[in-house]
């Protein structure tokens, strides 16, 4: 079978036990305009050209795997998409807004409300407990402490790590820490989740647990995901894949 997910969803008989049922979300979302789109992005670190004209889009509700060899520009693409750096040329659109043209204050508010970001190492605050770490984005957004803690507890539960709520990061396993980090990235209920090698530091089984849980939760929440990975077994959790090679989308001019 060489079908992409939406095709598979449309042609799969409903009684097939192994396939995801042909859910309305997949079909409907693919008719929508992209939630995020980049056009001709160029970015250099001094003399190093990291992006050399990247165009791509993220469809609402989809999990897009961004793969490619190390140093190909995946992380830089994510930094541009999430508004963490300003591209030298080209534009990033979030819905109708050209966010690459906006001031940093605007983009940082966007990151607090609409974007969730997750890195290889969860970047949890080691002095805070799991529940405090997850509550942090809400507290920064001005949510009352008691409500923030309640919401954080719910999210920990959703990721199956309620039992470490009172633990600090150094006391958790890698997999637990990373699930807490995903919960923190999701607590503001962003419309886009950016995950840069989210399981890169985990063994295969812990990575699988983190990804399985993450996919289940984002599907329920309808979150669109940019999943960056150099690992095909991780990319297989996505609905679609784009490959970055030498700062360009591979095969973009080959249909």
């Amino acid at each position, binding site marked *: *079978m*060489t*079908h*992409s*997910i939406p095709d*598979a969803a449309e042609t799969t008989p409903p009684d097939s*036990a*192994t*396939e*995801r049922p042909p859910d309305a979300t997949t079909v409907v979302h693919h008719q929508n305009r992209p939630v995020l789109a980049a056009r001709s992005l160029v970015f250099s670190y001094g003399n190093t050209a990291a992006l050399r004209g990247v165009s791509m889009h993220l469809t609402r509700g989809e999990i897009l795997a961004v793969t490619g*060899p190390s140093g190909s520009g995946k992380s830089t693409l994510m930094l541009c998409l999430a508004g963490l750096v300003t591209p030298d040329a080209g534009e990033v659109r979030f819905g109708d807004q050209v966010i690459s043209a906006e001031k940093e204050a605007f983009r940082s508010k966007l990151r607090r409300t609409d974007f969730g970001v997750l890195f290889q190492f969860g970047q949890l605050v080691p002095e805070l407990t799991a529940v405090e770490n997850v509550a942090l984005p809400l507290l920064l957004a001005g949510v009352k402490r008691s409500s923030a803690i309640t919401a954080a507890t719910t999210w920990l539960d959703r990721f199956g790590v309620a039992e470490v709520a009172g633990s600090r990061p150094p006391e958790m396993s890698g997999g637990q820490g990373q699930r807490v980090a995903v919960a923190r990235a999701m607590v503001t209920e962003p419309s886009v989740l950016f995950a840069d090698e989210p399981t890169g530091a985990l063994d295969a089984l812990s990575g*699988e647990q983190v*990804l*399985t849980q993450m*996919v289940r939760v984002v599907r329920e929440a309808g979150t669109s995901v940019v999943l960056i990975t150099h690992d*095909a*077994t991780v*990319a*297989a*959790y*996505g*609905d679609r*894949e784009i*490959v970055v*090679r030498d700062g360009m989308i*591979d*095969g973009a001019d*080959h249909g």
Partner: protein
Amino acid sequence: MSTGHVLMGLLSTRERHGYDLKKDHDERFPAARPLAFGQVYATLERLRKKGHVEAVEIERVEGPDRTVYRLTGDGRAALAEWLSEVEKPSPFVSNPLATKATIALLVADEATAADYLRRQRDAHLARMREYTRLKTDPQASIAEVLGADYAIAHLDADLRWLDTALDRIAALDRSLASSPPPTPDDKPLKDFS
């Protein structure tokens, strides 16, 4: 790896007839080709002659008679020996992917070969998605998960090879592009940048 050992493994849990064995096999090993009844009966007969299984009774219900088989002590020993042996790693002598890419380079050009490899990569990843969905389904059985893990690992190996092959062909393309200008009978290189 033989059907005989697999059937003996299934018989080790309880005695039963060929029809049950076939059903159990197909359910436990969904990634394997379903067993043909003829193959099951022929294998059981062979195992019986070797003394690895024995016929314990003939069930007479409606329809044809069914012989119920049981694993013998010799069969159990043969099974234990088989389990203690390491499987020979496949020699990977015949690789249709590499063959096709090589032929593409021969009859066409780098762009054609790269295009084939990219489409092959998409097909492999699509298959890997199916196995990933299968094994992360909360309802999946351990047999399904183990089978999917195995398939995924093999697809992953192919995908790594595909990536290296794409890099190699891109490098080939670059080195040809930077070599002296082509002589008149060389075909023009496709612009790859």
